[in-house]
């Protein structure tokens, strides 16, 4: 079962910064067809977890297996080439390049396409994420909403099989969240597994198959959205009730 239907399998993952332990023996498996939501209070280690999976940070201990292969020692760009795409909570655009070039770069280097083939891919992704009209603008001049769109657009342009979304819905209006959900739904239907860190519970509830609650560097609860969100212990941790 693990061989075929699991895309990501993390066991005993630990990350310490000096004496501070941010991730503490974390275990999780993510299915190929799955959308997994991750919630947790600030400082629970959510973004650190993404940095470990994406290769920005090296784990202190534990294993990260992606498509059956240990990737803990690979650099970020190699993991991207294997099909791990990510967005940043605080957008990191290529500010002086145009929106189009931002996406083109991801398609060329992340998906390994020629510039010619990547052009088409970039245009498709810009249309999907609603950025087509802004394609010629320098990315540094975009509004926050459009920067979030660009994060998603770039991550999709690498043709990920595993997509890591870091608070992509934060700060959006209800209507904008609905648009975003539509895009994510379509991406998922094309066969992309998604791990999604989010504070906008409404969004997670709509799309996620499971929700995991991260607390002090480990998952305390994993299960179906309704069950997890109704859990009294989760409410205590997350909402401080």
């Amino acid at each position, binding site marked *: 079962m693990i061989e075929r239907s699991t895309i990501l399998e993390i066991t005993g993952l630990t990350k310490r910064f000096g004496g501070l332990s941010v991730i503490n023996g974390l275990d999780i498996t993510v299915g190929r067809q799955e959308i997994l939501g991750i919630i947790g209070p600030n400082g629970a280690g959510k973004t650190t977890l993404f940095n470990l999976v*994406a*290769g*920005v940070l090296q784990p202190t201990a534990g294993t990260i297996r992606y498509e059956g292969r240990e990737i803990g020692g690979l*650099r*970020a*760009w*190699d993991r*991207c*080439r294997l099909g791990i795409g*990510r967005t*940043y909570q605080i957008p*990191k*655009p*290529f*500010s*002086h*390049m*145009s929106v*189009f*070039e*931002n996406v*083109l*770069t*991801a398609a*060329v*280097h*992340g*998906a*390994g396409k*020629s*510039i010619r083939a990547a*052009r088409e891919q*970039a*245009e498709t992704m*810009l*249309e999907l994420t*609603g*950025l*087509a*009209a*802004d*394609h*010629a603008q320098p990315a540094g001049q975009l509004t926050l909403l459009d920067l979030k769109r660009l994060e998603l657009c*770039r991550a999709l342009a*690498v043709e990920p099989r595993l997509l890591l979304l870091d608070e992509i819905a934060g700060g959006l209006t209800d209507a904008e969240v609905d648009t975003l959900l539509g895009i994510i739904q379509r991406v998922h239907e094309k066969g992309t597994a998604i791990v999604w860190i989010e504070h906008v519970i409404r969004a997670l509830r709509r799309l996620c198959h499971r929700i995991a609650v991260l607390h002090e560097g480990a998952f305390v609860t994993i299960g179906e959205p309704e069950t997890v969100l109704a859990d009294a212990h989760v409410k205590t941790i997350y909402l401080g009730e």
Partner: protein
Amino acid sequence: MPRHQRLSIAVGRIVLVGAAAILAGAPFFLGAGDLTVLTEFLCLLVLAWMWNLLAGYADIVTVGQHAFVGVGAYTFYGTVVLLGVDPYLAFAAAALMALVIALPAMMIVFRLRAAYLAVGTWVVAEVLMLIAGKLPNFGFGSGVSLPVRVAREFGARPDERFATIYWLAFALAAATFASTYFLLRSRIGLGLTAMRDNEEAAGAMGINLVRARVICFLWTAPFLGLAGAIITLQKLRISPPASFSIIDWTVFVIFNVVIGGIGSLEGPILGTALFFILREYLAQLGTWHLIILGTLSIVIILIEPRGLWGLLRRVLGGDLIPVSHGARPGFGITRKS
């Protein structure tokens, strides 16, 4: 893009092409003195483009660029004078040797990052200069002049010689520009430009940061070596302090790129041109000339980190030398979301 911006970009391009055309024909209407200055200008421009590629794109802030200029100079002298090789082949040798030396230099320097890397490049350059000063056939620490017979190969009369050397410098600058332009237009360049803007995101989008840095470092070496060879031919002399001059081949170059605008092809042109104009008019001020230059670079950096070209680009609204990629014409115009 508004019409007046399209117009000003067009004017800017005409100025640029016009300047290039004047440079291409300079020996037909300029004397030896002016040609000497312009030869120096073209060599410094090559150094500026190369430093800009390393520091402005690949985040390799080197202060040891003069190492490869010196290696080029010494190799040129060695092959042409000591081995008696054809001078034009000696240019190829200078380029090749710079590339060969760049390999071990890279192994040392790339173990370091940021400020440590800068110091590392400097140390490598100083060591190479000290080695050059120990070479018996190269005049040890005081250096040696090029025999007149070598200079004659480039023209019997001094006028002819200056013209030939100038054209060599022009050819080098043109080749540097064209190849760097195509590098930046390629997929590697796309990655480099992304690295320039945000390194972490570039890595996450699949850009192999290590490979990009290696390519850049090795790319610059032969051009620096060739510049060193041409400078030697012009000055007719090699010596450790002059051929490996950190002030002439690195510090001024850094000023020029920073003042002109780092991370663009236009910036180094603007900065190097300004440097020569200031030098011509302020040289009689002696040390003040350098104080003014230093102050100017600090002021410009504080106002606009991307230099004079950064300021000018905002007015023009676009690049004069377009290395960027666009979507197909008309894309996104009909669908405003």
